[in-house]
């Protein structure tokens, strides 16, 4: 064992049971019993202090355990500098800054292995189950391999100074708001296969076809018109529009989606990868813009920017057609009940349906557009719930039955007629449509 004149241990933090100061004190007792000249300083105050001081007196450790009470941040450095090793036996610590502060002075720590610090400091500090025996053995190892731990401490210091700065923290924090988007990789070939080309049931397939047909009906494409298909996906809408003789530009931020769209070889259609917030087209370029089943995939603050871009590229007197589904008033309550019953936190669709609309939210969204605006609600598909879960083997039979029952209740010819002809459709119809006809002067 490498000889040491003395060992100075330090524990920083509130003296409460969660921080386990009694473990540190017991370790001090064992080290001294083994003949190792050890001192332990407790920096911090708390409910355990009185008991700890009493125990020190009983064990004749008064001269070797020091209680400083609360110490201001600016004076903490003095204690880190003077110690050899920091003890952090506290449990359930998410991310204590004490071992980080100690590493600034190149001092390693022995930390409870349930701390979140294991994720970043495993190379520079020692992690153990915080029992007296474990901490004691680690300290003996520290004494024996002093050089190794000294080197680790120095490496840790360099790493922290480089990686854990507040400027980096603030930049990462700011990026949380920018990064808030569904990753383009989500919209892969398999996504379009499952959701558009070969859905899980015939009902979903016909729902998609109905919606495209309705979109074309609202858009009224005419030959030679310039039309933007925003969030064109695999290009199925663009292809139908181009058949009318109009020129279509399909844009999407998913590279894979654009590759699929190009495979269609649609006449009069051009596809490009582009962020809808920063379109490369000049002002007033398009006669019409269509955006089918896209809004629910864009986070609200991004959607604001997308709408500004649409306003910019759309000619005065132009038309903007939007479809978004599902209606949150209809879906929301059933989703909540289903989650509770199935004991799941999130459905697969919630990974990409990040901005689900209702009538009022959609209406509010177009406040900035001057012109004639109409919001309508429809049921483009049938067997809304049951068709979505039909092929899913993980769903219990009784849930499938309940879904069928709900579908039947709301979609039978009588109730559907009532729902779609009354204000009830705001709450019970599936799909939302918005058609904006801009004023001639914009």
């Amino acid at each position: 064992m490498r000889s040491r004149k003395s060992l100075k241990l330090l524990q920083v933090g509130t003296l409460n049971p969660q921080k386990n100061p009694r473990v540190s004190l017991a370790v001090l007792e064992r080290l001294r019993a083994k003949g190792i000249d050890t001192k332990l300083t407790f920096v911090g105050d708390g409910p355990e202090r009185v008991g700890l001081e009493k125990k020190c007196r009983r064990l004749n450790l008064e001269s070797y355990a020091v209680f400083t009470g609360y110490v201001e941040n600016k004076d903490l450095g003095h204690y880190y500098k003077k110690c050899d090793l920091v003890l952090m036996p506290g449990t359930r610590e998410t991310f204590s800054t004490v071992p980080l502060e100690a590493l600034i002075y190149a001092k390693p720590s022995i930390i409870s292995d349930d701390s979140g610090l294991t994720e970043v400091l495993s190379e520079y500090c020692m992690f153990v189950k915080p029992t007296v025996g474990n901490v004691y053995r680690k300290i003996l190892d520290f004494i024996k391999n002093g050089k190794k731990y000294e080197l680790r401490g120095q490496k840790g210091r360099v790493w922290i100074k480089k990686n854990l700065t507040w400027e980096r923290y603030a930049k990462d924090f700011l990026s949380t708001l920018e990064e808030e988007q569904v990753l383009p990789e989500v919209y892969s070939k398999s996504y379009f296969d499952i959701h558009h080309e070969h859905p899980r049931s015939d009902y979903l397939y016909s729902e998609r076809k109905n919606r495209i047909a309705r979109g074309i009906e609202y858009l009224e494409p005419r030959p030679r018109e310039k039309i933007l298909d925003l969030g064109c996906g695999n290009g199925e809408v663009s292809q139908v529009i181009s058949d009318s003789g109009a020129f279509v530009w399909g844009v999407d931020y998913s590279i894979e989606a654009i590759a699929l769209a190009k495979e269609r070889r649609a006449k009069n259609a051009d596809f490009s990868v582009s962020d809808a917030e920063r379109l490369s087209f000049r002002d007033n370029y398009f006669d019409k813009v269509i955006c089918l089943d896209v809004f629910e995939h864009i986070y609200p603050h991004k959607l604001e920017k997308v709408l500004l871009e649409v306003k910019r590229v759309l000619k005065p007197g132009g038309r903007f057609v939007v479809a978004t589904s599902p209606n949150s008033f209809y879906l929301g309550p059933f989703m909540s009940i289903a989650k509770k019953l199935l004991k799941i936190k999130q459905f697969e669709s919630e990974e990409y349906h990040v901005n689900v609309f209702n009538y009022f939210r959609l209406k509010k969204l177009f406040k900035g557009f001057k012109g004639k605006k109409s919001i309508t609600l429809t049921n483009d598909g049938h067997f809304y719930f049951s068709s979505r879960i039909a092929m899913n083997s993980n769903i219990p039979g009784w849930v499938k039955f309940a879904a069928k029952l709900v579908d039947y209740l709301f979609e039978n010819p009588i109730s559907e007629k009532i729902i779609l002809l009354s204000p009830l459709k705001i709450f019970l119809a599936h799909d939302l449509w918005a058609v904006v006809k801009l004023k001639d002067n914009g």
Partner: protein
Amino acid sequence: MRFLIVQPWISYRGAETVSVKLCGALNKLGHPSKIACLFLDEGRLPEGSRRVEFILPSRFWQILFRKFKLALFILGTPVLFILVLKNVKNFDVLNPHNPPSLWVCVVSARLFGKKVVWSVHNLFDWRFLNGLDEFLVRKTNAIVTPTKMLAKEVKSRYGLKAKVIYNAI
């Protein structure tokens, strides 16, 4: 972007230190930021507290909350809510930290159309209020945790993704 960081109170502890340091760093990066809280634990403040701006209730409330835990327990949440509501219009993003800041911020943000980035330091069991807590957490725009471990807990409790940002020093 202007940030309003919300904490029930500011003392020397970890989560409060993060709030103060973050506020200072955001200001340095050109994002005007302030901290709204009920009182300051004078004499036990994190380093850098003098360089950030605090939004506090009147002196009466500050003393009351600092001296009487019961008053803090009963009146803390409504006073913090009023404090945030009075100031929210001057900010773009609310950043709640310790409870009940999150609930206060989500409601205020929904009323005034602001964004919420929740900095989680620990998860609490709200027992009969867990449903309300989950409902409000789902209204946040982003969640930040200091460890992957905590991010996993957030995912399993709320089904939401959290971004891991390791605390700085």
